């Protein structure tokens, strides 16, 4: 994934499930609503009303969380005039799959950056548990080597 599409993951919490490993629970909830919504872009109010159906939540909390998601680069926004005045409307910068992909890459590349060989050898180990995977990996490594020799 090109660098400009890089999502700004600031954390990875072990023991948390799925998106919540990267984001706070409310953040994960909100981005989930944004991804699954048919209507785009969304105003804070829309998200607030959707979340309110499931649990008691304050509007201002939703507002500040969406603001944070914008700061993190997960949501994009613009000012819009409409019912009730002038407000921000939000839409996701990445779709769900591409976000997950880039988040995983970021976590792994950060691991490689910090712990280099340990990580790669672990990955090779993981891959070698299956013969087919190992063969594919070898092929990939060979290809890369060939490219480099050229």
């Amino acid at each position, binding site marked *: 994934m090109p660098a400009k599409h890089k999502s700004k993951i600031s954390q990875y919490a072990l023991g948390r499930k799925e998106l919540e490993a990267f984001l706070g629970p409310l953040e994960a909830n909100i981005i989930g609503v944004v991804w699954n919504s048919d209507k785009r872009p969304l*105003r*804070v*109010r829309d998200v*607030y009303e959707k979340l309110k159906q499931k649990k008691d939540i*304050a*509007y*201002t*909390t939703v*507002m500040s969380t969406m603001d944070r998601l914008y700061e993190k680069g997960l949501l994009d926004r613009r*000012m819009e*005039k409409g*019912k*009730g*005045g*002038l*407000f*921000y409307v939000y839409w996701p910068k990445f779709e769900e799959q591409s976000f997950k992909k880039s988040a995983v890459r970021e976590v792994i590349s950060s691991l490689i950056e910090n712990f280099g060989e340990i990580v790669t050898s672990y990955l090779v180990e993981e891959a070698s548990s299956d013969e087919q995977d190992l063969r594919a990996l070898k092929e990939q490594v060979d290809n890369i080597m060939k490219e480099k020799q050229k």
Partner: protein
Amino acid sequence: MLPMSLDNLLAQVFQPYFYYSVILLILSFICVKMLLKQNHLMSRRARSITYMLPLIIPLLVMGVFHPETTMQTVGGGSTTGMFILSLNGNFAGASLVPSPFNTMQNIPIGPSLSAIILELLPGQVEILSITGILCLVGLAVAACYLVLAIALDDKIVSRVFHVIALGRDEYSSLQSKIDELSRKIGVRPPRIGLVEDLRPNAFIAGYGRKTMLVFSVGILNVLDEDELAAVAAHELSHVKEHDFFFKTFSHALAIISFFNPFSYFAASAAQREREMLADEEGARLLKKPGLLAAALAKTSKALQGFPKQGLAVRVASGLFLVSPIARRPEILATHPRVNQRISNIARLAPKTVKTRRNKAITVALSFLIIVGGLMLSYPIVKVQTAFTQDQPRLISLRIPAEGAKFSLVPCLEGIRVQPNEPVSEIVFTVPPALTFVDAEQPHVMVPACVNAAFQTQAFLTSKPLYFYVFVLGLKGKTRSVIEPVSEEPAAVDDTIVLIFSSPSTRLVTQREPAQFYALFLDLDRNTSRFGEVSILYLRSDTLMYANL
């Protein structure tokens, strides 16, 4: 039929309900403005109420002169009329006359007279009165607005502005500050709401239990908590002063004269005073005038970066919100200019300046305004009456074409005669206007008129008899008309025939039986008497004016 000519337009403008309500509102607004500009004796509250006075005038005017959707006017360009007398069914003669009364000398009259009078007046037609409709629309819309605002204000605001109720745990320290301020000022703590608007704004909606204090997201971002409390103190002062009702009534009164820009000026001026009053009270409540001033300055600075609100939102916030922070041209602004407000808050201490000089100026100015107003009222009435007088416009005569058929229906239902009294009165009833159709032109619109002829005798008199007829007609609906009847004195036993026709154009559209009332009054009460007064002829029918 719509009025097309300038004459019609002028006649519409000079209808008393329109003319007086417009002119008097403007004049009184100027007077009030002059008075309050020089006067520093009155409190803000009194000043705001004084600004409302001009707005009440149109309501009073329309109470006296009821607006009507139609009015009568002279139709057609050449106004011609006809006057014919026939004796015993035979055509007797016709003459060019300005009024029926002047023809009496020319017509042979005896006890067996049966007079038929056909008077063709200038085309009297009923037209739509645009000014009357404007006035009625204003009244109706104002009434609707009043009902809507009082019954549904909080609901309308919630819908239009998408107000979200703030939970107790959101901005909890601000909320408890607001509760404390409410207790201090002595009002019920309002519900707190939020609108998504990024423009800094705060306002009050509803009243009583329904009162809602609403902040915009913008103002929550821009101001710190103490400044927000200062804004809340300002808004709570509006609640304490019952400004919801003040605003609603001033808007309703302005809507009544919606066609008159001065009504908006007066309403806005009144509300600016309320705003200043709330500033002062809010600042006093917090004991920190600087905070509200800082909040106002910050808010107005932050507002500059944003585009204007949409028209619908601006209209709704004007009509249904108390004290929204909005921008409008100065004269229409419900809020005074920010620097004006800040300096007003800063010099809170001397609220009114009761110096001798100020008192003298106030008294002199009030006197001047009252005297000036009275002096002005004369030309105002003069101009109005000059344009709306009933003008008899019998100009030319025409004998009806041979074979023309007229339906003449004499109708006399009641007569009361008091002979041998200095004053004789006759009361008679005429049925609704009948249709008079020219057989050749059945489509021509013909207005109705009442004609009557009376006969009496000078009786037991040693002096020449001069007399007057008062035609009162239509139980007060018609203006009293005093017609001098006799120019030559009548001698004893002279038979006098009096002929008159309906004096007012109002009769032309009479649709119900109407009671007429005629008084015969001799001028020298003690020496002269009328003999028996009898009605020779009475007719209510229509008159042909077309094709002249």
